[in-house]
């Protein structure tokens, strides 16, 4: 038991600080993928609910692809695909260099593609929960379409979409573990290195699991607060 504590301590003899930094990388990767994923997901939902069939179809194809591919494969496609694509493009203009994609950036893009395809469905079902009268009411008040969207629809949309988006955030947090396979020094990879060096695999992977659990618990409490905040209008009635 004492040995385990020494191994996990911070400082020279322990792996505590390495693992803490890894956890920080995990969280920042998830946080970095979130805004892009949310924005893209929202645009996709707008496309899917538009009356224009071609736009709807285009958005649906995107969703089908990124929901059907394993996340690991999406990650490899982005990571190696961009790498090879750039090398070929540079070769065309006569430069022969080795080009390596930053694994954080590749992971961020791959995760936000996947996240956006799921988020678009969450937004879409939230849109369906808003009565048509809300759009018409905005129009009747003389608001422009943009104003209706920002002042009337979006606040209600957030409330309706939050539970589903919260689940997607928890999934995103877990999916960041996959990025360790393309060399990002995240929680999973640091735990793996510690496990290999110290030969205490169960301890370190157990700790990694525990940290993921703690992150999930923190997120759930935060999300519950956010949901309460978004529903503050309901209680007044």
């Amino acid at each position, binding site marked *: 038991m004492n040995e385990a504590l020494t191994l996990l301590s911070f400082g020279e003899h322990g792996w505590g600080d390495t693992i803490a930094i890894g956890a920080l990388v995990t969280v920042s990767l998830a946080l970095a993928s979130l805004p892009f994923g949310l924005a893209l997901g929202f645009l996709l939902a707008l496309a899917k609910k*538009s009356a*224009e069939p071609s736009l709807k179809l285009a958005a649906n194809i995107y969703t089908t*692809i990124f929901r059907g591919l394993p996340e690991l494969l999406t990650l490899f496609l982005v990571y190696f695909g961009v790498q090879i694509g750039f090398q070929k493009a540079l070769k065309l203009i006569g430069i022969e260099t080795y080009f390596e994609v930053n694994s954080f950036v590749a992971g961020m893009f791959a995760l936000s593609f996947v996240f956006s395809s799921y988020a678009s469905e969450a937004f879409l079902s939230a849109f369906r929960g808003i009565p048509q009268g809300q759009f018409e009411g905005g129009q009747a008040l003389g608001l422009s379409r943009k104003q209706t969207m920002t002042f009337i629809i979006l606040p209600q949309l957030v409330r309706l979409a939050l539970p589903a988006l919260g689940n997607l955030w928890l999934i995103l947090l*877990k999916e960041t573990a996959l990025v360790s396979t393309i060399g990002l020094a995240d929680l999973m990879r640091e*735990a*793996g290195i510690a496990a290999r060096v110290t030969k205490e*695999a*169960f301890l370190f992977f157990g700790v990694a*699991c525990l940290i993921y659990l703690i992150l999930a*618990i923190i997120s759930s409490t935060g999300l519950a607060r956010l949901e309460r905040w978004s529903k503050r209008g309901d209680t007044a009635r």
Partner: protein
Amino acid sequence: MTVVSSDTALPPPPPLPRRWTKARILGHVLMALWIVSGASLLFYLVTNINSPFVQKYWPDYVDGFLVTLQIVSVSLLIGALLSLPIAAARASRWKVLSAPAYAYVYFFRGTPLLAQTFLVYYGAGGFRTELEAIGLWTFFREAWYCVIFTFSLNTSAYQAEILRGAILNVPKGQWEGAAALGLSQPVTFFKVILPQALMVALRPYGNEIILMIKGSAIASIVTVFDLMGETRRAYSRTYDFQAYIWAAVIYLMMVETLRRVWDRLEMRLTRHLKR
């Protein structure tokens, strides 16, 4: 009441010509992009169908595909069996049963599948002497068994939640009605409640199968040669990007086929509920 004869009825006005709105232009541009990239992908695949890469690695891909199917089906089956007692414990009134079941479900749903797989596969090595003593070492030594073990436990947690949610979704009146008819509790559960619950659970079960197919790619990281494993091996030997493209096509077809079949199945099985 006046009757309008058919020859005086006016034909419906011709539909208005659709204007080229911004949305319509954007939609057509995006569709054009999809069509061009789809066509070039198809062209790429067709020109490569007789390439040395495909000639050499196609059998490996078939093997990998079968391994993936095995992993998914075996794990799902074991998970389904395990999920019954877990769901029952989770719904139990006794804290002694429901608390551990809750912890189990929370652990497996709250941590990444990759971390769980590593915990079992690499972690088992630390308990070698203990495992040898009870004769389980041969089981945990093999990556294949570790993967099946982890995936089964993982999916059992998800399936237990699906099952519990579906059973709770059945109205209480069904229990009471069965009791009024003098049916015993087990009969009520298996003949009245469970069939209705499974009907509700069809869609989440379908999603779980798809999640499992996608999640099974993780097995490749612990040296199991499933479809993803064969893909990675082929890529590391040739550095030919088509390795990943073929895998993407196969995975997409697998998931899409399943989704469509499952939709059909659901439509057929729930047709008595449609109004």
